[in-house]
């Protein structure tokens, strides 16, 4: 089982690239420990900016640095970065088209028992609705590395959301093609498509395995980029498999599921079951307990899939 959290991979990747490119700068808001950025701060103090506990200032400063030709990567808890700083994200980064990369750490319900102030379950919805912002979630450590490498080359605003704990590998290595905006088909199938991003990709793969045993052949899409969206892959999934289940560590409103449904409803209406956290302050607990409680599990996906196959998910 993989022991390396994605945040550590981000630090290592940025450190490696920043040694070659002095314009890469990292900013934190008393978050270097939780972002695993302490090694960066230590190794390249000239390319590191600490703002203290001031997330709005953090993003505003990053926008100013970007305007001065720097390539800022901002690392702060997803809950604060996507809420406290959102106007700076909208106006200073997105509207003025600044090249700022926002890394939302400890996303979703990573801070399980700390309550709604520390959960980020609306971040994808909020950032996705802002023009000029890309939204990305890596599925594992290999994808994290490739995503950060791609983002260093990418010009513009982007929000990356990762969880706190190590994730089980989805990929066996980084020997695969990763392109921002291009979904990756992990399993081929004709009966149903599971679409996931970030932490939930692993759950989709496990659900796919359970369903294979039941004789249901699932397609699995890793939608690592929620914006810009891979419309082709979603339309193909709708046309070729006729049913979709989306899995996300996010509110059922406005996130990955909504993005998928926006596409299918226009180009190929098919049943889309959006699995995520319902519209309530999430129950307290560890990530696994919370996922289990809300049915974000391979077993529940299996049940939903059976219902979809039998057309039992009709509105009454």
């Amino acid at each position, binding site marked *: 089982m993989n022991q390396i959290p994605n945040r550590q991979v981000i630090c290592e990747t940025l450190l490696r690239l920043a040694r070659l490119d002095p314009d890469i700068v990292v900013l934190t808001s008393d978050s270097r*420990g939780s972002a695993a950025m302490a090694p960066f701060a230590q190794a390249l103090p000239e390319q590191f900016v600490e703002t*203290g506990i001031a997330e709005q200032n953090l993003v505003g400063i990053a926008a100013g640095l970007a305007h001065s030709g720097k390539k800022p990567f901002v690392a702060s808890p997803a809950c604060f970065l996507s809420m406290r700083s959102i106007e700076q994200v909208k106006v200073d980064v997105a509207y003025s088209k600044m090249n700022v990369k926002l890394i939302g750490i400890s996303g979703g319900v990573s801070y399980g028992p700390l309550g709604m102030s520390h959960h980020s379950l609306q971040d994808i919805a909020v950032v996705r609705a802002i023009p000029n912002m890309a939204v990305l979630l890596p599925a594992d450590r290999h994808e994290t590395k490739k995503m950060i490498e791609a983002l260093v080359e990418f010009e513009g605003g982007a929000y990356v959301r990762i969880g706190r704990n190590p994730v089980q590998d989805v990929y066996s290595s980084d020997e695969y093609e990763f392109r921002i905006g291009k979904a990756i088909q992990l399993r081929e199938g004709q009966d149903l498509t599971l679409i996931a991003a970030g932490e939930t990709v692993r759950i989709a793969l496990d659900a796919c395995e359970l369903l294979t045993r039941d004789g249901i052949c699932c397609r699995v899409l890793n939608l690592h980029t929620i914006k810009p969206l891979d419309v082709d892959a979603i339309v193909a999934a709708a046309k070729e498999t006729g049913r979709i289940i989306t899995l996300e560590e996010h509110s059922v409103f406005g996130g990955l599921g909504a993005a998928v449904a926006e596409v299918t409803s226009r180009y190929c209406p098919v049943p889309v079951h959006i699995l995520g956290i319902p519209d309530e302050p999430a129950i307290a607990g560890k990530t696994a307990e919370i996922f289990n409680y809300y049915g974000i599990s391979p077993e529940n996906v299996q049940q939903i899939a059976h219902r979809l196959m039998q057309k039992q998910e009709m509105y009454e």
Partner: protein
Amino acid sequence: MTSTLELKRKSIQIRMDVLQLIHGAQTGHTGGSLSNSDILTVLYYSVMRHDPSRANWPGRDRFIASKGHSVESLWCILADLGYFPKEELKTYCQFGTRLIGHPNNKVPGIEMNTGALGHGLSISVGMAMGAKMNGEPYRVFCLMGDGEQAEGSIWEAAMAAAHYKLDNLIGIIDRNRLQISGGTEDVMGLEPLGSKWEAFGWQVTQVDGNDIPGLSDVLHAVPLQRGKPTLIIANTVKGKGVSFAENQPEWHHHVPNDVELRLALEQLSAELSVYSE
């Protein structure tokens, strides 16, 4: 009113409870809960007008934990005062609990949900303003962190409190000189902190925030000036009472292991016996 000796014993007991709570759940903010235990003890057992059997009594003084992460000390005090059964402390941070890792106003005794830093003072300004509008005599006590002072919203609230002459508002800064990444003056310099608050129109005083008699004197004397909000800089030691946790940045959220818990409880029991006849 409770004697300062009794308060001292109480605050040591609260520290012991906090350590056991955090050790039991294997999560929590140890350092800040220990640094602010004396402040909370004086407020809850001596200064504030409140009634655990009537948590929503309209005349109660309000307490807002703007540094919501130090909720452990608050849970232990509220349980000790009977706001909820002590038994329930076992559920702290467990699946489905209401005793989460930040203040939760589903629990009697908690006014507002906090946890995101920099919100508490604005909420407190609103409450103090509300008291004035409604002609109510209650006061609002807001506890902030020193690292938290970097949030711009605090200064927006500071300006508003002075503008509206909210002398029923008392801000307290747990000045333990540490935040997560290290010393406050290294991470984002705050000094001269008192002059900044004075410049924002507050009546400012400094006190040893781990000294019960000193705290008691100043907190019983508020407002320090009619027509002005009061700001108390309580100089504290993060991790106070446990020698190996004191002034150690890692103890911000370090969870004591079995040995550390035993040693810490030994130190605190020894201190307790000094204050017991």
